[in-house]
């Protein structure tokens, strides 16, 4: 986990330096059998390219969609995912866990 997070934060810095709009998503809280531990990162650029993981693939698509808004607006937001969501079959965690993800723009 440590080494992959190293690459993700380094990528966030490199992408930003290259002039791309960049957002960083971080798992801030988990309940139950969440697939990725608290502190896991996902970095997203304005074109929707991404590196890292906050859920092992279950909700990345939704996080990326929100990240694009955050890149445009600049205001951080907190996302929550779990099986109890209305959208469970689309963007829920099939493992039964719940996670909260903080998404912020890298300026």
């Amino acid at each position: 986990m440590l080494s992959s997070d190293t690459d993700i934060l380094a990528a966030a810095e490199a992408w930003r330096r290259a002039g791309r709009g960049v957002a960083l998503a971080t798992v801030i809280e988990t309940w139950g059998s969440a697939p990725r531990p608290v502190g896991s990162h996902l970095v997203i650029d304005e074109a929707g390219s991404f590196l890292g993981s906050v859920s092992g693939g279950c909700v990345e698509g939704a996080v990326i969609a929100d990240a694009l808004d955050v890149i445009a607006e600049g205001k951080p937001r907190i996302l929550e995912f779990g099986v109890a969501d209305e959208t469970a079959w689309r963007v829920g965690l099939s493992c039964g866990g719940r996670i909260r993800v903080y998404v912020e723009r890298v300026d």
Partner: protein
Amino acid sequence: MRGEILRALNAERAARRPAILVTDIAEGTQRLVTAEALAGDPLAPLLRKALASGRSGLVEAEGRTHFLTVQVPPVRLVVIGAVHISQALVPMAAALDLALTVIDPRTAFASPERFPGTELAAEWPDRALGGRVPPLDPYCALAALTHDPKIDDPALQAALRAGCFYVGALGSRKTHAARLARLAEAGFSEAETARIRAPIGLDIGAATPAEIALSVLGEIVQALRRPGDQA
């Protein structure tokens, strides 16, 4: 996140220094707290606890919720002596996710045949450290296992100077008394040499090389997770 905070966070990590990014998740305000600045921070007690555990997480303080992104350098284990115990240590250290390097100037011992896939330096410790092997730092554990003062002593001195969180040395109490006398002669204080754990390993009655390896790793985990618990 401001670009300069991200750059500073990455720079601290590249230098193998611990740091915590504190984010007020309601406001989005952030600050980076380095190890040196920690004592002066209003959240110092919480930050100290987070650093010791190495885990990121939410904390509540003064009615506000902060997320702590805890960045702790990955622990490295440097073993002096390509001996039987070291062979047993290799797979156990891998299971614990510890990066391990074995240093032994005796090429007959430090051979890839005896240590397949292991990072090996067939050099004297004082030459290898800072050369082919990155220098020691506070996030390193050093275990001296050769029984040979010519090889073990310079490594122990380097580990004490670097402030390694764990310094252990194989040998009986008698051997260790002689070692302490040599280190005192070399200018190390009693407080410094008291940091060496000898006889090495938790006292679990270890008899075989694998059991000794287990007791050493147990002692390393204890030193890492419960600092200040030194027996």
